[in-house]
Structures are given as C-alpha cells and as structure tokens.
C-alpha cells in the first residue's frame, strides 16, 4: 500500500501539477482514496496536537443534510433512544459552525449542487459521513437517471455507513470510528484530499452538473496550520 501516495508525493515535490487529464492520474487519485489510511502519524504528534485532536474528536458539530431516505434515521439517532449527544455529537443548523457533514442517502443532481455548496462553506477541519448504499454505488437507484452513484467522486468522504437504510447503531458506530480516527490521526482526511486533488473533483462535478456551478473552491492554506 501507499505506493500511489508515495508516487504523488514525489510528483508534488517536483512541482508537478496533479490530475489534469491523464487517465493514470485519475486512477492514482482513486487509489489514494481507497488507501487513505496513513500509519505512524500518531507517534509524531506533539502533546498540544494530541490535546487538540482529542478535543476535536470529542466535540463534533454535525450539519445533517437530509438529502434522502437516511434523513428518517437521523431523528432517532439524535433523540432519547440512541442519544448521540453522549459522544459529544450535536446538530447545528448552519454549515459555518459544523465539523461534520452527513449526506444522508442518495443525492440527486440538484441536491449535489447544494451538497457541494454546503461542504465548501464549512471551515476546516471538516469531515463527511455518507449514509446508505446509495452514496457508495448507487444502491437501490443504480439505474436512475437523476442520481449520482458514487459520492466519493465529488467530495472527500471520510466514513461510509452502508445499508438501506443503515440502522442507528450503524451510524453511531460510524461516528465512534471517525472519532477514533480523528483522535489518533489514522485517517487522511477527506478535506485534505479535496483540497489537494481539487482539479479532479472539480472535473467530476462539471461532468455531471455542467459549468454553471459554485465558483472555484479556494481555501487559504496558510490559515490552516494549527496555531
């Protein structure tokens, strides 16, 4: 593993602008998605970084965008039966305040524009949880003309919760795993991929939505460092 990653790192150090048109580069981008687990990072964290990551893991503000059927299992998760607030997960209304975007279920083309807008408004570090089989491979709607089949092509997804629809317990497990990944930094976050491989994501977005979409995503790199 990490072969694709090393290759990309090497190319980047040479000043290579990644992912323009060639197919091989697209394949490496997808491979990077699949092999996003980076090892040994936890040991290199300083104490302050460790503390900050712990706080980030134990306080998650969620903007739950009910894009599809999965929205119906959101209320049970947030209410007294399953009570996800135990884990420090709170729902907020606006993407500006949020750390985690839940894409709950299939995304039609019209919704995809709003998902991208919502995602890009969130401030880093930000994570995406994709709910249901529909966001993985199209699920029930594999042959529908109006839904996207694979959310990973358009956003940097961090956690998939499979099922149609996923049970609340599954969603909670997704949260717990994401929490551990944020705490130990064992995950290459989706927002880093999104930022670095933006050209590729943008091309995929334009492929389905046309040119008339949200303006180019510009995240200030310098402001990102933990300070």
């Amino acid at each position, binding site marked *: 593993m990490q072969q694709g990653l090393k290759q990309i790192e090497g190319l980047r150090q040479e000043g290579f602008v990644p992912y323009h048109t060639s197919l091989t580069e697209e394949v490496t981008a997808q491979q990077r998605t699949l092999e996003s687990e980076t090892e040994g990072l936890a040991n290199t964290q300083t104490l302050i970084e460790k503390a900050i990551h712990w706080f980030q893991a134990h*306080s998650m503000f969620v903007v739950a965008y009910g894009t599809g059927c999965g929205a119906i299992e959101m209320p049970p998760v947030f209410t007294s039966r399953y009570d996800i607030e135990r884990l420090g997960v709170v729902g907020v209304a*606006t993407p500006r305040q949020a750390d985690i975007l839940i894409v709950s279920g299939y995304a039609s083309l019209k919704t995809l524009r709003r998902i991208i807008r919502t995602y890009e408004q969130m401030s880093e570090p930000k994570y995406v949880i994709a709910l249901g089989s529909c966001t993985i491979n199209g699920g029930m709607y594999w042959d529908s003309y109006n839904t996207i089949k694979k959310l990973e092509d358009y956003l940097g997804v961090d956690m998939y919760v499979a099922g149609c629809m996923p049970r609340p317990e599954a969603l909670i497990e997704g949260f717990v795993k994401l929490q551990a990944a944020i705490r130990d930094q064992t995950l290459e976050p989706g927002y880093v991929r999104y930022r670095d491989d933006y050209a590729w994501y943008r091309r995929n977005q334009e492929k389905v939505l046309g040119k008339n979409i949200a303006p180019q995503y510009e995240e200030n790199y310098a402001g990102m460092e933990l300070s």
Partner: protein
Amino acid sequence: MATVTLLLELLLMVGMAYSFGFLYYGLYRNITARVHGRFGPSIAQSFWDSIKLFSKATSTSFGWMFTAGPIIMASGAVMTVLFIPFFNQGDHLQGLSPYGNLLVVLYFMVLGPLGNALGVGSSGNPFGAMGITRGLTRLFALEMPLYLATIGLMITGGTADIHTLMIQQSTTPNLLSHPLLFVAAFLSLVGFLGKSPFDVVGAPQEVYSGPAVEFGGKFLALALSQSAVFTFAKLLLMVDLFWGGAATLLELIFKTFVFFVVTVFIGNVYGRFTTVQSVEFLLKVPTVIAIVGLLRV
C-alpha cells in the same frame, strides 16, 4: 500593591465567571437530557466545544467590523461581570463595584447585543440581519420589566450601589419583601438567558441560527465564551439584587444554580413564541407586575 491585587482579583472574577458559565451550560445540557429521558453529554462538553472551535480554521471574512462584533460582545460581558460584586461581605472579589453602581451594570448589559448587531450586520446574511432585528426588538421588551424592578429596588434602598443593596437584605431578602418586582425581573431573566418561550433570536427552525449564522470557528468560540460569562453575570446580578448576595463560594454557587435550574425547566416545557407574541407578553405580564410592584414600594 493594591492595584496589583485588584488586577489579579479582576482576572480571577472573569476566570470564575467563565468556568462557572461553562459548568452551568454543561449542567443545562445534562438536565435537559434527563428531562428528555436520555443521558446527555459530559458536563465539560461545552468547554471542549469551545476549545475545539478555537482550534478551527477561519475561512470566512466579512471585513474588520465582522471581527470586531464578537470582541465588543465579549468585552461587554466581561465588563458586566467586573462591576458586579461576588460576595456581600469582605473586601475580596468586589471587582470594580466601588467605582460603579447598578446603572453602570445595566448599561453594560446592553453593550453585548449592540456589538453583536454591528458585527452580524456587516456579514450581509439576511438571516443574521433578521436575527439581530429580533434580538433588539426583544431586548427592548426585556429591559422594561428589569429596569422597572431595579428602579423599585433603588427607591426602597435609597441607593444604586449593589453592595449597599445586598447589605440591606441581610434580614429579609428582596425576594420576599418585594415579590412582585422579583417575578417581573425573573421573567425578564428567562428571556435574557435565551430560554423558551423567548428564544426567538437564534431559532434554528426559523432564522437558521440567527446572529450566529455566519459565525464559525473562532468567532463562534468567542460568542460561546461570552455567552457563558454573560449567563453567570446575569445570574449573579439576580442573586445580588433579590437574594441578598452570598457570603461564601458555596452559597454563591447554590443560589445562582437555583435560579438557573428554574429557568432551564421553564425553557424545557414551553415552546417558542413569535417575536411579536413575546414582545406582547413581556410588555403585558411582567411589565404590569413590575408597575404594580413599583406602586406598592
């Protein structure tokens, strides 16, 4: 030497207000969770939230006014705390109260919302502007009963100094001797703490978090911190004015907590009024109660 002691005490007061504010906010979330029939988060959850928010990147900018808004808000809250004495005896933790009286405190209480208005207004988000309009409309209605009640206290006490007012209550607290004024001020406190049925400002189902709609990361952290400090300041003022203040730290915690819990329960069992309904209610019920109380002084 005295100046250094005073400065240290001021820092301690803000620190105490900050930590008690977050503790109360955590308790609020826990008590609410129990009412809902669930466990709820850790008591320190709000504190973790604020640290996490401070560590987030800030990707938005709407000019310097937007940045200044939360800072004005926070300084308003801090100044309010500094002018309210924590204890009714001794020389410590009196803050700046010898240099300013109740009128100054009431003045500083308005500063926060105004700073908020300046900042949010410059973001250009319609939901923010609507939230601010709601906030200022409600503030007008909230102040009416509170001011009438405090005027009543100042008339009976013959002074506007909070410390003197506290000492005068050493036999019977104002809570018992002026119950009508207390009820009016307490209803106003429920609104000041942003609890239902007067939580029109940040209603997520209506105006999409209102003033906080464009606040992310550090801005939201600052807003949360100032809200924690401000919450404690308001509770403290209520205890000082109506329950004779406190002599020890434990007494202080107990008295503020009792007021806090009652507002939490009120908030849990009532829904939200619209802006017009809450203004109507506040101008009818507590204001009339306060006027009757004022006439009986």
